[in-house]
């Protein structure tokens, strides 16, 4: 989230699209309700009429996988009616930049941007024209036909109400009502916000869905202001923190890049990832990249080696190769992975195409699963229909402590880091995850110290000072405060900066003071300022709101440097420094300082500094050449679609996705059924209030199992009639990859879509279920057996093994199925 939960109350118009916040983030509705009480509008755009829709002023249905068409139509509406926030667009975005005249767009290039070879774009033409001094050539009037603004206009001119409605199935009057209502927030002083979640991301065009909405927010001047922003509602308590701390293949903590094989030295690595700019008024914050790298390497390997040596210890990935989730399970399926940690995860239910995932686990030599409860991953070898005597995988199921049985911090969706305390001991022999990690590390290190092995120093020289070692040199009881301090970072030598002396061993007060010479450490530069000599900032509990707009700046701590609204420099007029919205100002110039939120890189009013400081040119990208699949979002059909052809162009699907279903690259389980009469119904997945993700934690809880005991499928009355299905009957749902039995909920909350004159049905299934807590599975003596059973398995049995072109997040929100009455 660029903004935060309480800030939703400041919004004049809340668009909830790609999220069912009322069900999945119920407390967010405290603030959505407040916004509505203050006269704000709520718009719900969703294939299903959800609990969110039930409270909306406007509900607009759309066929799953057509968000870009829907939003593209909104961009066109805003431009056609000149509803943009002109000053914002001119000063804070790259709308004025002139693009390479050789650049071609889908409307003139068979549905493709210029430069495609195979499934990769050569982005040479996706570039800006430059002046002699190296700065970008601009047209402040935004009239040049090659300027971003005009290209945007040209690109989305194709997204007429008529065309959009044919693609999305949304009635034209609903489209117009949504566009008109939301575009109202383009007026200076008005704020509109987007709340989205996996309904945007789980598509082959997921990143571009978000881009499309971000472009709208920029055109309307809605980023950086109170009640605005681009707000991803994160679905897990610490998925923000676990991402910040880089439990992902492509990054190191603080969004530093994972080094590639061609970057042989630290200097080469830093050069590759430290951006430069010729733009005079840009802060270009990432110019500090080498400081963060050096400080991270110190946190990894301490002072016992040089920075270059420490860099050498890091593994290197091959450039251009993807090592993400789908790749892991594809490799595993093909027998290329030997050992596997599924730590606090239930991949057998959460990953796409569960049959492939579950079969892949059987090709491992060994697997470690750390969890609170027995689950479909740890016990995959004894799933119904599986013969354990044929599965070689050695499995360890380790019991861990729950959130109230250990101490530490988590970071919520709005980057707010909050401290949790231990209330009780974990049950039996269960241990905090951190202690399991520490003990495992110590044992492996000892093995390498004793026996040696390839590149053993990377392990043995790692710094690991998180508590008192026992007689064997193993740290069993972790001091999590030591880790929190290491993440923040220390001065490793005495340093004097701006006439202030910082003694060796003191905590660095802010990342602005981190150094590139190895004299500071910081495990994650974004968290530098979270645990300082003033104490543990995440544990702060002063709930007074001195801002008047709900920032609650003294409660806990948010990255970066306790800023609550990102890009808040864009909330003020560039010339006068006056807030666009004087009633809800985020920052105010008091004559000598900015007061309010922690200002985001802005200099005194009128200074000309650009507010999007993480971009080299300081401007938000309406034209975004960094993505794999195009600088502007373009509608492509989902990988599996009910249509024979894409209504808006000859290009059917996102051309830049990695395919697994073709000869030579995939396997039989990666099959695809598109425009296939055997699978004519669009299917989407969703979550329930009462269960969390795969249900691993919640299905074992009687109260929650009582409220949602069984997997179901929502079906329109029209489809139910065609299929002869009554409400409450069992239905078998099939995709080309798997099948699932579910109870039918026949509901008018699903309506048939009229797509290009043809009726298209859509159904939806919650994916919170799994076989491990069902009544009919085998329970051996000593097995944990739930007090209340749940029925049914994971909806991911049906989902396709295909990912977004940029992130490789699977397309779990739009795929094709068929349904029959069970046994029919």
């Amino acid at each position: 989230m660029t903004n935060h939960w309480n800030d939703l109350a400041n919004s004049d118009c809340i668009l909830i699209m790609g999220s069912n916040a009322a069900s999945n983030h119920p407390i967010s509705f405290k603030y959505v309700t407040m916004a509505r009480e203050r006269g704000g509008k709520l718009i719900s755009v969703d294939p299903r009429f959800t609990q969110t829709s039930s409270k909306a002023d406007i509900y607009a249905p759309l066929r799953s996988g057509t968000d870009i068409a829907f939003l593209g139509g909104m961009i066109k509406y805003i431009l056609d009616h000149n509803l943009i926030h002109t000053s914002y667009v001119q000063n804070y975005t790259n709308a004025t930049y002139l693009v390479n005249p050789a650049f071609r767009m889908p409307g003139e290039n068979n549905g493709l941007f210029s430069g495609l070879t195979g499934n990769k774009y050569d982005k040479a033409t996706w570039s800006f024209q430059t002046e002699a001094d190296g700065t970008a050539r601009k047209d402040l009037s935004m009239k040049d036909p090659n300027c971003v603004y005009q290209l945007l206009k040209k690109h989305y001119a194709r997204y007429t109400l008529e065309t959009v409605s044919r693609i999305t199935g949304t009635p034209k009057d609903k489209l117009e009502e949504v566009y008109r209502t939301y575009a109202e927030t383009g007026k200076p002083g008005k704020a509109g916000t987007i709340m989205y979640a996996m309904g945007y991301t789980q598509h082959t065009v997921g990143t571009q869905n978000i881009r499309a909405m971000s472009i709208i927010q920029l055109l309307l001047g809605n980023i950086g202001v109170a009640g605005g922003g681009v707000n991803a509602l994160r679905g897990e308590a610490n998925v923000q923190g676990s991402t910040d701390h880089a439990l992902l293949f492509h990054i190191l903590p603080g969004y530093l890049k994972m080094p590639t094989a061609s970057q042989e030295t630290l200097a080469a690595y830093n050069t590759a990832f430290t951006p430069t700019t010729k733009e005079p008024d840009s802060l270009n914050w990432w110019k500090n990249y080498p400081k963060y790298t050096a400080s991270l390497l110190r946190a990894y390997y301490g002072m016992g080696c040089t920075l270059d040596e420490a860099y050498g210890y890091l593994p290197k990935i091959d450039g251009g190769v993807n090592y993400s989730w789908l790749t892991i399970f594809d490799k595993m399926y093909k027998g290329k992975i030997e050992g596997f940690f599924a730590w606090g995860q239930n991949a057998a239910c959460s990953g796409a195409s569960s049959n492939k995932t579950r079969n892949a686990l059987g090709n491992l030599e060994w697997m470690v699963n750390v969890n609170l409860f027995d689950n479909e991953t740890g016990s995959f070898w004894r799933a119904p229909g599986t013969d354990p005597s044929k599965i070689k995988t050695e499995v360890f199921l380790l019991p861990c402590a729950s959130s109230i049985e250990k101490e530490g911090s988590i970071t919520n969706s709005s980057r707010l880091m909050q401290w949790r305390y231990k209330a009780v001991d974990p049950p039996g022999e269960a241990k905090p995850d951190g202690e399991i990690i520490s003990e495992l590390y110590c044992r492996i290190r000892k093995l390498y110290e004793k026996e040696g092995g390839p590149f053993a120093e990377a392990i043995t020289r790692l710094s690991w000072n998180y508590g008192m070692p026992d007689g064997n040199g193993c740290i069993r009881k972790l001091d999590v405060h030591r880790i929190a301090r290491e993440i923040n970072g220390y001065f490793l030598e005495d340093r004097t900066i701006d006439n202030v002396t910082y003694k060796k061993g003191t905590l660095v007060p802010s990342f602005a003071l981190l150094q590139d010479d190895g004299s500071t450490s910081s495990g994650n530069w974004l968290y530098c300022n979270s645990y300082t000599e003033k104490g543990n900032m995440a544990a702060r509990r002063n709930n007074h709101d001195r801002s008047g707009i709900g920032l609650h700046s003294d409660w806990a701590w948010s990255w970066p440097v306790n800023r609550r609204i990102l890009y808040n420099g864009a909330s003020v007029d560039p010339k006068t420094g006056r807030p666009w919205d004087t009633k809800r100002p985020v920052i105010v110039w008091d004559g000598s300082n900015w007061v309010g939120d922690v200002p985001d890189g802005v200099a005194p009013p009128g200074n000309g500094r650009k507010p999007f400081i993480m971009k080299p040119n300081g401007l938000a990208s309406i034209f975004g050449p960094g993505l794999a699949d195009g600088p502007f979002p373009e509608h492509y059909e989902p990988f599996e679609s009910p249509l024979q052809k894409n209504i808006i162009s000859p290009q059917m699907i996102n051309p830049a996705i990695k395919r697994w279903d073709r000869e030579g690259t995939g396997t039989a389980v990666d099959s695809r059924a598109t425009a296939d009469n055997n699978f004519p119904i669009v299917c989407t997945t969703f979550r329930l209030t009462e269960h969390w993700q795969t249900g691993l934690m919640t299905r074992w809880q009687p109260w929650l199992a009582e409220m949602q005991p069984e997997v179901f499928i929502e079906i329109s009355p029209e489809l139910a009639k065609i299929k002869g299905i009554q409400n409450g009957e069992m239905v078998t749902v099939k995709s080309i990859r798997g099948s699932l039995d579910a109870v039918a909920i026949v509901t008018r909350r699903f309506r048939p879509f009229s797509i290009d004159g043809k009726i298209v049905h859509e159904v939806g299934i919650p994916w919170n279920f799994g076989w491990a807590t069902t009544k009919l599975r085998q329970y051996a003596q000593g097995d944990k057996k739930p007090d209340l059973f749940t029925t049914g398995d994971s909806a991911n049995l049906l989902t396709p093994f295909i990912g977004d072109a940029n992130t490789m997040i699977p397309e779990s929100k739009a795929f094709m199925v068929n349904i029959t009455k069970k046994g029919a």
Partner: protein
Amino acid sequence: MARKIKLFDATKCTGCRACQLACKQWNNLPAKQTENRGSYQNPEKLSPTTWALIRFDEVDSGVNGVKWLFRHEACMHCTDAACVKVCSTGALYKTEYGTVALDSGKCNGCKECVSACPFGIPQYDPSTQKVYKCDMCLSRLDNGLEPACVKACPTGALRFGDEDEIMSAARERVAELDGGGYLYGDKFVGGTGMLYILQEKPTLYSHLPTAPSVPTSVIVWKDWLKPLSLIAPGGVLAAAFLHYLIKGPKVVEESSLDKKGDA
């Protein structure tokens, strides 16, 4: 002490069921095995172990439209509380907050309250031979806390406070909704201690009586016979006998109040 009442504003309810769960949590009520019957609503109805329930109703609206209605069902804490009137042991009683509480120790399982309640709230448990229902979290009220369901509600759809304050807030809200809200509970059984602002007409909500009243037999019982029963030793038996004469034998099923189908 001013009477305390609860307000359920359906126009703010998202059907998240925080209230339903908070009730179970605070009152240590166990869960029972359920199944999906083609609805989100579960358990199907109130029971000795479910004292608050969100009911889900779907209503057609227009060509392509639908309305999804949520209703917090729990004891209405009537001013003119039929259950209290018929309770021969004093197990059901009016508290100083104007709420209807239940002292399980005194309940003899006669089930009179079950048939007397116009809302179908009290629930008889054959295994303990006692009746159970929402007591508005009496122990919390006694300690200055709001009921658990009200505290848990994310959106402020549930509110609790002094009758005057809640009543005027409710009227204000209904006026503000300008035809989009219906006040329910102020016009019968002497006024209910839980007031509804409904999003649609009461007739569109399942299992909600549109004109609830205290049964005549109960009025006779309460006003004429029960005072005797509580005063005179042995009166309970005598009164029960008289009650039998008036009403005849009645078998109360545990779940006898399915007047309408649930969504």
